[in-house]
């Protein structure tokens, strides 16, 4: 380990999460205060290259502030960050694409010019940006809007134009702040496909969301953030494994000596017995139920979802806030 700058913050010198996989983003102990209010309080993140990484949390949890620190829009009060191997994100700005939460384009610009301008900000020559802008619009079914001014487009279309502008310079790292908000179900699906396509091409995608379904469907890894802290960061499977799988057992008999073998947290609903999968596995329990002639009608073992993991990790209050803030999800 190699020490950088402030406090106890450390960043792996080999730039890998587990010593083998390169990291696109490493952050240790990021803290941001606004006049007494701590928006972000010691955030650690390790985003592997080529992965889809979600930052999951309710509004006001510190997602946007964290992303802004990672991008160098604001500097942390404490902690260190390393983006694509650079401690100053501005040094690699030309290899990053960023879609902020508050979308914005110049209303008088034509769609393809808006894309070219966003590319020019990242070092792409305007002529090349215009060419790619037109091609991207055609490729994504927006060819008819090439010469339309942004003010003539619907909100969803303008949002798509901005997303294309985020990608026009072919970035290595794409940062999307609440990318699904404001999109209808069809366009949310398209965006999910686009994100998967980017990752398949080697681009690292990090996005914030308060919609668990998107994170669950897309992400290799997530950081759960609540109250400016990150109680969990890692693979989605590991988050789920924080909660034992749930067993749902249906029996013909309602009672018998076999009942004593059921775990202590068992709940009885009609003919169903619901309990957490014991550490010893399901086999000993099943053996006892069969030998007790309970008459098994059905048995299912359900792995915990990311929502359950979020509740277990971030707490009920954060989960409630997440649900209250969530827009209509894709079915």
């Amino acid at each position, binding site marked *: 380990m190699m020490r950088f700058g402030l406090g106890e913050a450390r960043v792996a010198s080999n730039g890998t999460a587990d010593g083998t996989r390169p990291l696109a983003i490493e952050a240790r102990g990021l803290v*941001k205060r*606004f006049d007494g*209010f701590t928006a972000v309080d010691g955030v650690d993140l390790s985003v592997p290259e080529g992965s889809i990484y979600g930052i999951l949390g309710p509004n006001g949890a510190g997602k946007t502030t964290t992303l*802004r620190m990672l991008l160098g829009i604001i500097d942390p009060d404490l902690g260190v960050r390393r983006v694509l191997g650079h401690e100053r994100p*501005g040094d690699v*700005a030309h290899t990053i694409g960023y879609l902020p939460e508050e979308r914005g384009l110049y209303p008088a610009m034509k769609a393809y010019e808006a894309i070219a301008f966003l590319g020019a*900000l990242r*070092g792409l020559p305007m002529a090349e940006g215009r060419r790619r802008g037109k091609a991207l619009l055609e490729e994504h079914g927006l060819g008819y809007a090439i010469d339309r001014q942004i003010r003539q487009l619907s909100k969803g279309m303008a949002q798509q134009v901005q997303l294309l502008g985020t990608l026009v310079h*072919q970035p290595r790292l794409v940062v999307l702040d609440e990318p699904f908000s404001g999109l209808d179900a069809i366009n949310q699906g398209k965006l999910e496909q686009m994100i998967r396509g980017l990752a398949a091409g*080697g681009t690292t995608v990090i996005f914030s969301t308060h919609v668990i379904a998107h994170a669950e469907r897309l992400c290799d890894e997530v950081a759960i953030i609540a109250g400016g802290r990150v109680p969990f960061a890692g693979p989605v499977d590991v988050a789920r494994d924080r909660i034992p799988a749930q067993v749902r057992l249906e029996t013909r008999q309602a009672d018998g000596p076999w009942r004593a073998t059921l775990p202590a947290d068992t709940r009885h609903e009609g003919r169903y017995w619901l309990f957490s999968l014991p550490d010893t596995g399901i086999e000993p329990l099943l053996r006892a139920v069969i030998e007790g002639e309970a008459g098994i009608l059905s048995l299912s073992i359900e792995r915990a979802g990311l929502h359950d993991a979020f509740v277990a990790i971030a707490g009920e209050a954060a989960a409630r806030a997440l649900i209250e803030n969530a827009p209509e999800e894709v079915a």
Partner: protein
Amino acid sequence: MSAQPQRGRLSTLAAAYVIARRDFVATLWSRSFIFFLLGPLFPVFVSTMAGSIGSQVEQTIDAPQIGLMMQARDVDAMLSAQAALARDLGDDVPELVVIRRLKPGESGDPHTALADRRVNGGNLSAIISGTPAAPVLTGTRERITASHGAVALIAARASGHGPNVVPKVALSATATSTAAQNHSRIITAQAAQTLLFLLTMLLAGMVLSNLVEEKGNKIIEILAAAIPMDAVFLGKLFAMLAVSLVGIGVWAVAGGVIHMVGGSALPSLTAPAVGWPLFLLLGVAYFSMAYLVLGAIFLAIGSLASTVREIQTLNMPVTMMQLVVFFFASYAMARQGTMVEAAAILVPFSSPFAMLARAAIHPEIWPHLAALGWQALWVAIFIRGGAALFRKRVMQSGPATRSAKRRGLIAALRHPRG
């Protein structure tokens, strides 16, 4: 899409160019630019506003003194007579200053003394030579015509003959006097200051409009993520400068056409002391400095506001400040060589105005180089400071807190959104 970038990060200047190019094109095709082109109509309004200051300047300049170049005994007699008459008649009696007390047998050349700007600070309208009994008044035709009656009265009293025996004043006309020249140049300076004020006011307003647009369409965060904030500032500032140069070009063409049509019927300004070519060059330089300082302030202050209404509220005091700066510079123009003028030159806001006036009145060039260096220093400071404030204030997330909303801008400064 492959992830193989071929380019490097944009330098600050390259990024500023990207911003400037966008702003330049967008502004040139906007309604703001039409208002800018209509700007020359505003002098009517401004000259009304500046009327009192202008008249004060006029009065100060219109009270040139009459020099004395006579035998010592005659000088004393003339001064005593003037003082006595001033007691009786008040301010209508012209003020006399001693240019030279001649020794017996010595003679002086009033024409040479009038042409020498170093004599009495160049504020001489005429010179009395000869004797009280046979005075000779030398000066421009209009000045000696206007003053010869009062001079005759003073000479009559000085010669001891009483008011009934008034000596004949011999008139010796020169082509011009330093006072008349100064007066004309002051008018040129006033016109230049007014134009400078007008341009900076219009331009700073356009910068604010541009910032409102930027804040309204939320693109500012994209800019902040991609390029240094200094580049955003430089780009916006210099885009407006370029827009103004286009506007000035349009005015110049329109003015040329009007001049060709109007010909000699149009009033003309006296050539400034440094000559027209250098004066115009300095005008562009001082306009740039005045605009850059003010534009940096407008951008910084504009970044504090969240809404168009707040921008408008902020606009008012800043516009008032511009007026104060203009009036201060006009006031200082009438007090060349005083501490007031020095203060106007040193204060970064009024410095371009004061120095442009100086270029119209004084021919020395080196003070302009020093002043431009001084102003450039302040431009750099204001851009740096403005960019830092802008970056600190604008790049926060989420809705404003209730307390921040309640306590307004100052509270918002202390409680950024988080």
